[in-house]
Every structure is written in C-alpha cells, then in structure tokens.
C-alpha cells in the first residue's frame, strides 16, 4: 500500500530535478568545487590548530603540574619530603573505598627513601549537589595530614564552605581541622560531625556537605592504613 503511494512521488521528484541537471554550470561541478574548498578550509584550520597546540603544549603541561603541586603544597608541606612526588606515582586500577571506579594516581612522598605520605584523590558520593572530589594526604602512620576539595557542586553560600576559598572563616577554614587536629587513631564512629556523635565541627544549616566529606575522608584514611605496605612498595611505571 505504502509502496504504491510512494512510487508516483518518486517519479514526480525525479521530473522536478531533471531540468536542473541540464543547466550550466552543472550541479556536479558546483558540488566538487564546494567540497574542494571546504576541504581546503578544513586543512588550513586544522594546520593552524595543530601549530598552536604544539606551541602551547609545554606551557599547558607545566601549568597543569604547577596546579597539582600548588594543591599538594596546601595539604603536605614541602619540608616533610625530598622526592619528586609527581614522578613517584603509581596508578590504582580502581578503588571502591575511595569512591573511584576509574584508575587514579597515587603520589608518594618520601624523605631519604622512607615513606612519608600518600596523596590521592577520593570522591564523596553523598554530596548535596552530587559527588565531591577531594584530594587527601595521609601520613605513613595513617594520620590524615590535609584535605582539599577539588571540585564540587554544593550550594553557593551554604554548603560550599567545605572549599576553603569559599569559606567565610578565612583564619580557620573548616577543612583545616583535618590538619590541625591530628586525626590519628580515629574509629569509624569518630569520622562524623559532632551532631551525629563524631569529632568534627560543622556549620548549622548545612550538614550534608561536611557529612559527605567526613565519610569520604574516613574511608580514605582506613583504606590508606590497610593498604599501606602495598601502596608504598609498588614500583612506579
């Protein structure tokens, strides 16, 4: 039924196109010329981008490494170690304890060859606005040395005080309590805000964000303590 209907339409369409094919300069010529020009433009644009990419690559790599080191410097003072963190890196295939289902790098700090700290990324999945990405430094004795929020979608002005740049309390930002209060030997129950019977402060009105961060940091600390031997021993690639 539908096929029969379609046929006359096709014929009509063909009839309409036919006269155009006879017209100069010819559809094919125009198409070929357009295609060639488009290809030419694509070639020139790609060449331009390739050149700029090559010219900026060293600066971009350097900027990314500076960025990483700046973040690490905030949670792990340089005086504590003497190796090149970024070179002494292993890759964890995946770590459910850290909320990671993709491979993550683990940076290892050493002084005179002795293990000092591990720096790695963890994800707090229970954030109010979605997952919160953290960078955590855990000392060789399983102490949490420092934590920073790398990316989050917490409500501006409410839950975003977990990021020290947004914290109104500039002198003693919330996130600093990990490094200043020596979180050694804490049990699972201690890794909670005070409201929930834990050891950590929070701000009234926004408990979900710090709760999520605390859970993730607690899990990461336990993970680092349990896997310590293995994480320090593996040879970097």
């Amino acid at each position, binding site marked *: 039924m539908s096929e029969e209907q379609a046929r006359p339409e096709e014929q009509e369409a063909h009839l309409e196109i036919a006269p155009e094919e006879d017209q100069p300069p010819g559809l094919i010529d*125009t198409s070929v*010329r*357009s295609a060639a*020009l*488009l290809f030419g*433009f*694509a070639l020139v*644009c*790609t060449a*331009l*981008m390739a050149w*700029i*990419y090559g010219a*900026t*690559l060293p*600066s*971009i790599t350097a*900027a*990314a490494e*500076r*960025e990483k080191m700046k973040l690490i410097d905030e949670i792990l003072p340089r005086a504590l170690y003497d190796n090149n963190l970024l070179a002494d890196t292993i890759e964890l295939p995946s770590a459910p304890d850290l909320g990671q289902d993709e491979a993550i790098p683990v940076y290892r700090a050493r002084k005179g060859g002795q293990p000092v700290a591990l720096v790695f990324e963890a994800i707090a999945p229970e954030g109010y606005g979605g997952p919160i990405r953290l960078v955590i430094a855990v000392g060789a004795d399983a102490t949490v040395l420092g934590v920073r929020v790398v990316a989050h979608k917490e*409500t*501006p*002005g*409410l839950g975003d005080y977990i990021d020290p740049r947004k914290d*109104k309390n500039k002198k003693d930002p919330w996130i600093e309590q990990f490094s200043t209060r020596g979180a050694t030997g804490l049990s699972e129950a201690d890794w909670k805000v005070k409201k929930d019977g834990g050891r950590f402060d929070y701000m009234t009105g926004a408990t979900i964000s710090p709760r999520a961060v605390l859970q993730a940091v607690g899990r990461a600390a336990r993970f680092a303590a349990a896997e310590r031997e293995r994480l320090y021993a593996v040879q970097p690639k």
Partner: protein
Amino acid sequence: MNSAEFRAIAENGIWRQNTGIVQLLGLCPLLAISTSFVNGVSLALATVLVMAMSSGAVAALRTLIPYEIRIPVFILIIAALVTCLDLAMNAWLHELYLVLGIFIPLIVTNCIVLARVEAFASKNTPLAAAWDGAMMGTGLLVVLAILGGMRELIGSGTLFAGIETIIPGTHGLQIAPADYPGFLVAILPPGAFICLGCFIAGRNWLDARAAKHAPAAASAAAH
C-alpha cells in the same frame, strides 16, 4: 571607511543592537558566568577577541567562500579560532582558564558570533568587519561587567574578587562588612534573569524617553 561609519558601527554594537539586552543572543554564557565581575569580563573579553578575529577573517576570505557552503565554512573558522584561544588561555592564563572552564569552547555555539559573521562580515571589508565584531563584543562586555558586578556585590558583598588571577599584585574589594551573610538568589541563575530583566526594562525606558523627546527636538530644530 570614515570616522562617521566607524562611530555608527560602534553605536550599533554597544547600544542600538546590544547583544545582551536587545538581541538577547548568547544568553547561556551570559547568565551562567556572570556570577562575579571578573568572570563576566574575562569571558566577554574572550568573546570580543573571537568576534573581532572571526569577523575579520571571514571578511578577508568572503570572495573565496561560495554562498552554498558559507555556514559550514564560517563555523569552521570560528571553531578554529576559539580552539586556538582556548589553548592559549590554558597555557598562559591557567588560573582564569580553570574558572571559565567549559565556557570558552562554548563561544563557538554563541549564536551572536555566527550572526555577525553572516549579517555583517560576509558583506564588508575586513577592517569594518573586525571593528563591528569588536563593538558587538564590547556591547556584551558592558552588559556582562554590570551584571557580574551587581550580582557579585549583592550576592557576596565583594567587587573584583579574583582579579589577582588576571593582574597579579592586585586584589578584590570587600564592599559589604566582613560578616555580610550574602544574598544567595543573586548568585544563582534566577538572580541573573532578574537582573537582566531590570536591564532590559531600563534600556526600554531610556529608549522610550528618547523617542518622546526626539519629535520635540526635531520640530524645534526645524523652526
């Protein structure tokens, strides 16, 4: 091109056909990034640069570009220029790049860029086209600067926060008292719409007032 034509193009871009509050094009970056003065101005500056470069490039190549395939060629040129800008910012203004993030590549999809290339650059000389692009971008810059400044001031009580990422050695101003709790709505997207609505209303009011005064002035001049 004489100076009167340049002035006409500038007036057109900044006031009469202002991208942000008259043509209402490219609202996505406008509203998303205008949470602070520095963010708004930085993105607008990038847009100015892209618009001037793409308009100039298209005008220079306009006799080469067949009418049938002009749109893909325009997009190709704009996308290539934006990619170059994206890479350059990543390399030399890395901190700012981290803030503006995905909005730089999105300049490609900002319809105002394509609109000016199609409406103006494809029919004019490179110099006039580049000037037109820059002025259209400047119109956006003015709106983004005021919008960003307002939202930052109301929302977090600061002004020019984060300027040290662009000009090292400077720092933002704390306008409100340090314990200002902030006004959340101004920072969230609804605040952007409310502020923008006020701008459009204000501009229409100014235009209406000018129109009312204009006939009187014209008849006065005739006598």
